[in-house]
């Protein structure tokens, strides 16, 4: 993964034509590129900054379904337990692979249905990319995940080719439904296509339409029919071993060869072509280029008729030669062809590397590599930057998702399943999500709390609390600081309340203060606030001795802020007029008063005088009352 094999091709960014004669600066972001003008001369107007998005697919509404559905499959895959025996696991992995492919197909169909008007070319491109992706995935499933042994390998490859060359069915239907199938111009093309794909029964069915017409050459057709019927097909679930099958096949092959040598089919050139194909004559098969249309179809057909018991390690000889023969000396292979060739050579890393370069987002490589990793097919390939291949790709994919304004929630699950760096990536990215509403903030907080990311919880709560405070929503601010257990912020909010009280003379937001509950204990200042409000309430309900006691305890416990002591003592003034205050209380109040007086020299003298007077009178009253004996 260190060097790139090909030269990177320059990409023109559509709307930046005006930049041709100007200098450009750029900066990489997590998923975007910031491009800005840098002028030597300051011209009129301000320089422009452009945000260039690398990955268009993430914005396409239909492809979004791909991301969402594959996310569900991915999470399900991670949950498969380790201790299940490997045979069962293989079938599970195959079914998961099929799930992924069906999601890709569903997306393709929807794109094809909706490709009209302005979106036609864009959707067309996406469809062809998805087709290629599904082709590669299917091949990887056959070769790596299912890992079919010799014999079944060819059967699976045949299925693979049939799935990806679906126009044969349409043409066959067209021919069969026409008035006289045998005269149809595509008749023989259909028959040969079916033979090339190894669909002998269907080929016979189409051939029978011909036979019924020409009575005199019916014996020739019957001969062909017999040949096609007796072609041995390997049955993996049957009792026949591979060697037995091989022997049978060779008999049949010799039979076909004899027919060819005897010139049995010389009367009909089409039948002659067919028997040459059955014998495995490469030149004849190559002549059917039009019908084959791809070199891998040619490869599979060739193997079907020359080497049906091919073993996986031998595939790549045939693959390389088939590609060369089919494409010819002058046509360079496309990226897709190279990827498929690497797959046939069982070089997984090359497949992944080439796909990463060819595709513009990490979806495909991340999910495929993850699945292959679960099948234990990837050797630990240590990259220069520490994590293994699977984790690297999944992290890249998830980081790309995170830049999307909506799909970031999916990325969280992906990060969870990257054991080495996932958590760090998540911690860094989750704080950068814009929080417009409380509901979104609550969801982000839930993600952080579930993963014990206390730093992030605190910082997000602080942002929300600050915002609430700025908008004068003290209750909201308090509830956010309670959630973060942020004592410092709670203190700040209480200061705000107290300030409001000092300015206005009454408390705002009584519904909050009266109902603080255990949250009061979060910070000293908050406790003071709650208790102070309680004092006011008690006073309002005429429960003076309790009120006084509370006030005293507030001052004794030293949770009252110094600046407010004078206010507290002033509040005590009317209480001192009441009859129920005891001597002890008065003495205590007096001592506090002296402390305050000492600390704060420039208190208003009227206030101090009033207080002194009140304290003295109260003391007198109390002494008299306590000294009197009720008779």
């Amino acid at each position: 993964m260190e060097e790139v094999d090909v030269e990177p091709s320059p990409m023109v960014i559509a709307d930046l034509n005006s930049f041709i004669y100007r200098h450009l600066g750029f900066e990489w972001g997590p998923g975007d590129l910031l491009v800005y003008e840098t002028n030597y001369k300051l011209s009129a107007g301000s320089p422009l900054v452009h945000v260039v998005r690398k990955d268009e697919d993430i914005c396409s509404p239909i492809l979004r379904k791909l991301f969402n559905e594959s996310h569900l499959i991915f999470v399900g895959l991670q949950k498969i337990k380790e201790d299940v025996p490997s045979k069962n696991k293989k079938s599970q992995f195959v079914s998961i692979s099929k799930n992924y492919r069906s999601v890709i197909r569903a997306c393709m169909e929807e794109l094809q249905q909706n490709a009209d008007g302005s979106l036609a070319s864009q959707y067309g491109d996406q469809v062809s990319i998805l087709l290629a992706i599904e082709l590669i995935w299917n091949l990887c499933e056959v070769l790596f995940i299912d890992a079919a042994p010799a014999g079944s390998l060819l059967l699976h490859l045949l299925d693979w080719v049939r799935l990806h060359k679906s126009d044969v069915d349409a043409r066959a239907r067209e021919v069969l439904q026409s008035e006289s199938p045998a005269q149809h111009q595509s008749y023989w093309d259909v028959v040969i296509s079916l033979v090339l794909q190894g669909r002998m029964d269907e080929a016979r069915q189409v051939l029978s339409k011909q036979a019924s017409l020409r009575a005199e050459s019916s014996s020739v057709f019957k001969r062909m029919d017999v040949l096609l019927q007796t072609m041995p097909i390997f049955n993996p679930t049957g009792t026949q071993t591979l060697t037995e099958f091989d022997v049978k096949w060779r008999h049949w092959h010799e039979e076909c060869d004899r027919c060819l040598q005897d010139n049995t089919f010389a009367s009909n050139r089409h039948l002659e072509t067919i028997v040459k194909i059955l014998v495995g004559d490469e030149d004849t098969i190559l002549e059917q280029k039009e019908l084959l249309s791809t070199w891998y179809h040619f490869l599979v057909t060739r193997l079907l008729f020359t080497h049906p018991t091919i073993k996986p390690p031998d595939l790549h000889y045939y693959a390389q030669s088939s590609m060369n023969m089919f494409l010819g000396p002058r046509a360079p292979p496309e990226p897709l062809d190279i990827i498929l060739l690497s797959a046939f050579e069982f070089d997984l890393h090359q497949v992944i590397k080439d796909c990463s370069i060819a595709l513009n987002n990490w979806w495909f490589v991340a999910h495929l590599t993850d699945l292959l990793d679960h099948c234990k097919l990837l050797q630990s390939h240590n990259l220069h930057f520490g994590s293994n291949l699977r984790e690297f790709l999944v992290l890249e994919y998830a980081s790309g998702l995170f830049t999307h304004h909506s799909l970031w929630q999916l990325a969280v699950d992906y990060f969870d399943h990257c054991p080495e760096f996932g958590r760090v990536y998540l911690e860094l990215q989750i704080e950068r999500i814009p929080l417009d509403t409380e509901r979104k903030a609550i969801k982000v907080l839930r993600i952080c709390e579930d993963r014990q990311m206390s730093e992030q919880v605190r910082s997000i709560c602080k942002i929300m609390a600050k915002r609430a405070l700025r908008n004068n929503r003290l209750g909201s601010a308090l509830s956010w600081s309670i959630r973060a257990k942020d004592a410092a912020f709670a203190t700040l909010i209480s200061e705000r309340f107290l300030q409001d009280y000092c300015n206005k003379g009454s408390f705002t937001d009584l519904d909050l203060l009266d109902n603080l509950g255990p949250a009061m204990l979060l910070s000293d200042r908050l406790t003071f606030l709650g208790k102070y409000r309680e004092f006011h309430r008690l006073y309002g309900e005429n429960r003076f001795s309790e009120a006084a006691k509370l006030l005293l305890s507030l001052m004794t416990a030293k949770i009252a802020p110094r600046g407010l002591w004078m206010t507290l003592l002033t509040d005590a003034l009317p209480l001192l007029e009441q009859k129920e205050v005891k001597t002890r209380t008065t003495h205590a109040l007096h001592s506090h008063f002296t402390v305050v007086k000492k600390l704060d020299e420039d208190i208003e003298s009227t206030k101090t005088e009033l207080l002194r007077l009140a304290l003295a009178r109260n003391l007198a009253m109390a002494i008299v009352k306590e000294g009197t004996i009720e008779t």
Partner: protein
Amino acid sequence: MDPTAKYISQKISRTRWRPVPAGLLQQPEVFAAGSWDNESNRVSIWSLGDDDSDTDGEFDEEPRLLCDSEHDGDVTDLQFLDGDRLVSASSSGAVAILKLQPDCQALSLAHVWERAHRYSCDNAPCTAVVCRSPELVSVGEDGRVILYKADQTEVVRVIENADSSTIHAVTFLRTTEVLTVNSIGQLKMWDFRQQSDSPAQILSLTGDRVPLHCVDKHPNQQHIVATGGQDGMLCIWDVRQGNTPFSLIEAHSAEMWEVHFHPSNPNHLFTCSEDGSLLHWETTSGSDMSTLLQRGWNSRVVSHSGVPLAGEDDSVVSSWLAGDSSKNRLEATHMLPSQTLSVNSLDVLEQCLVCGTDGEAVYVHRQLPNFSI
């Protein structure tokens, strides 16, 4: 029967059934969905296709899109005012009435109250809206409760500073009374007949002030209310009585986003949550253990406390409030096949249930299992 899933390429914040005309025994077929967290959000109308009574639940039709309309800001709440008008609440603080054309071919904006909820220098999201035609009430993060009439352009009444914290949900108790829940765990009753701007009653749980996110009133008995909060606890309250909820049930492991009593069969309750599950709660009175076992008990009941109201006739006491836990059981069943991303919203009408998730999928149950009217 598993629900049908449909991926709609936008995260869904609300789904609501379009009300069926009363009297007709029809199953609902059309629902509205609102999106959130998109660069351009939409309110969309979906149809389930024809309810062919010949095929007996065989069809697996996906919902298909009838029409949609752009929406400014996240759709924070959606309610049908009547058969063709829809009220939406936005994260930009606006409340809008959308009109649905008779053949559901288009959705247009009929009226919008811009910046109904606001701060002095910023937008305040409107968090919930409730209707009882022709009146609407909306609440928001700015702590205001606003009363509107559907046909009047001006707002009818604003209760300023109704709450010092965010009000998350609101429901009508009586024609002139609403109940709101806020993020310091209080339920407040507001009577619009009173001139003062203070609540008629305040209820809250003693202990930790857990934010409450949703509230719903029992369809027949106006004093029974269910709430759900940040810790996933489902509480059933009797608003006439006292300061403590009647039942506290550990329903979910994360925030509960919506709670709904079934409108015609209130022994059934549905809740959905951030933890990705949708639960169907059924209170059965007096059935014996064997029938419960047959139906597949799958519940998580914590406590069913509370003393039955003195002097009440047994037949009148709702099974939600009855204290004798041996007689009344609560069973809960999961409605979604597997764990999904957060289920943000649900709506239930007759035998149909629709819900929307953050995984951009809408799930529709056309025949609620174990459900009898």
